[in-house]
């Protein structure tokens, strides 16, 4: 058997690789890659190591060196985009969101964890996991106790556990494949604010989001953000011991976004979103870990039902949680939600005037919402 297995393995490797050919112009690709790397180094202050032969490539990328800076940003963004593309759904994104300040940076309805904290000004924490179309979020109080735990399974079954009410609900037919964020740098995103904010959209039915659309995964939302051209490279900074590449939003953005990506993997390590000028101070910080889809890590995507908790209807489970969130412009009914536009409301500055205070009513679970159309990211003119 020994020789047999060795021969079979050899044959298998031969057969698996038989059709592989090295790409044409390998040297050209490598040279281009090296050139871009040098440009990145020059942009981030490591110009001292440039070889003499590359001096011509090491264009000044300081203020005013627009072309070089744009190239560098484009390269980093492309790498981040590729890394996130590979990570979705390959990796489980584990995100710990800490909220501080008296308001969320986006008005209301973005993160229920943020919003519940905003009511008191205390910092709150939400821990999230996303993997493909699976998603789970546990929101903790400022004292560190779980408030509620919710998630969508791979089969689009929504589960919500309320720790305060000691209730739980599980509903199918609410979820559908994640809201499509179709961004590309070439098509132009026209974002008034960065798409990173989508990370903090709650999946809680009734909060500024169509009940049938899943929360955006970290990988998809961050990918959308970086491919929109709203971020530029702003040097390096240490994040948890890593000399991370810092990407920041444009100065004229109504929300300040900063993403730190690993220089090795180009996956985001930390996201920070701050209120823009003229808004109440608020900040969301998300520390991201990218986990292998092991059985142990995948188990984090499942919402556990604690013993002794009572099963209730969806509305009975959700409403007490919504009541914790002040000033959320809730839809009158889920059925009345216009898919996509609910997200729009979330991210545009809150309009003047009284906000809706009506609590949502819930459609019969059997009513499946229509497919979420492509979202339009622009604020209405006022």
């Amino acid at each position, binding site marked *: 058997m020994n020789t047999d297995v060795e021969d079979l393995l050899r044959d298998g490797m031969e057969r698996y690789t038989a059709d592989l050919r090295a790409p044409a112009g390998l040297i050209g690709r490598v040279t281009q890659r090296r050139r871009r790397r040098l440009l990145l180094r020059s942009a981030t202050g490591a110009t001292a190591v440039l070889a003499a032969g590359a001096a011509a490539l090491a264009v000044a990328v300081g203020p005013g060196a627009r072309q070089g800076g744009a190239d560098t940003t484009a390269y980093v963004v492309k790498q981040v985009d590729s890394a996130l593309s*590979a990570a979705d759904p390959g990796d489980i994104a584990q995100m710990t969101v800490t909220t501080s300040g008296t308001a969320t940076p986006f008005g209301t309805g973005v993160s229920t964890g943020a919003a519940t904290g905003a009511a008191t000004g205390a910092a709150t924490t939400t821990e999230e996991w996303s993997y493909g179309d699976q998603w789970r979020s546990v929101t903790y109080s400022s004292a560190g106790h779980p408030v509620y735990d919710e998630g969508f399974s791979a089969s689009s079954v929504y589960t919500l556990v309320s720790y305060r009410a000691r209730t739980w609900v599980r509903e199918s037919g609410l979820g559908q494949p994640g809201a499509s964020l179709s961004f590309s740098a070439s098509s132009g995103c026209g974002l008034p604010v960065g798409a990173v904010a989508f990370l903090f959209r709650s999946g809680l039915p009734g909060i500024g989001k169509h009940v049938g659309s899943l929360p955006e995964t970290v990988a998809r939302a961050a990918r959308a953000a970086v491919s929109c051209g709203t971020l530029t490279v702003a040097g390096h900074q240490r994040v948890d011991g890593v000399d991370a590449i810092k990407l920041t939003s444009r100065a004229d953005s109504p929300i300040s976004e900063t993403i730190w990506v690993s220089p090795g993997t180009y996956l985001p390590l930390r996201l920070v979103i701050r209120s823009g000028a003229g808004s109440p101070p608020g900040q969301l910080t998300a520390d991201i870990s990218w986990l292998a889809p092991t059985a142990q890590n995948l188990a984090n995507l499942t919402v556990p039902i604690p013993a002794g908790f009572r099963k209730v209807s969806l509305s009975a489970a959700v409403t007490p949680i919504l009541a914790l969130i002040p000033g959320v412009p809730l839809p009158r009914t889920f059925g009345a939600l216009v898919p996509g536009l609910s997200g729009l409301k979330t991210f545009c500055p809150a309009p003047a005037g009284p906000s809706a205070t009506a609590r949502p009513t819930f459609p019969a679970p059997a009513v499946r919402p229509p497919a979420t159309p492509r979202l339009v990211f622009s604020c209405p003119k006022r």
Partner: protein
Amino acid sequence: MAAERSTAEFEGFLAERADHLLRTAVLLTGSREAGEDLLQTAVERLLRRWRRFDGDPEGYLRRTLCNLATDGYRRAGRWRQKERLLRGELSLSRDVTGDVDLRDALVRLLWQLPARQRAVLVLRYWDQLTDAETAAVLGCAEGTVRSAASRGLARMRELADEWDDTAASCGRNGKRA
């Protein structure tokens, strides 16, 4: 001191050996995309020192590929690979009663092995290096190579035995060529 090498010489070398090196890289990483990425990184390193490079370029690239692959080159690539492994494992359990050839199953199993074991098996059975040559590439002792190869093959033998058992229980005789 060695004479400086020309770019044309480098291109000639790659034209001759790049296909084989790409296959090595793909076997080390488990996917074409990751393999190409790995090869480009290794070629870039060689290109940096090519003009004054004095040695066997293929050996250098092979060593670089293995080092990068075993040192956890690019986390995203690793996750991609792990995902692939997970899928491979799942499909393996499904396909084991189907028509998947044992040879394909063994290659998929290769990607489930630890990086060092995988590199040893690729170098031994794909590049057909001796234990001593493999040890030199990986910078370890020959005994380490032998034990890694032994453990990797043992895992493959288990698979082959399971395969035989399943084939027997399913009435498939002599699926393996």
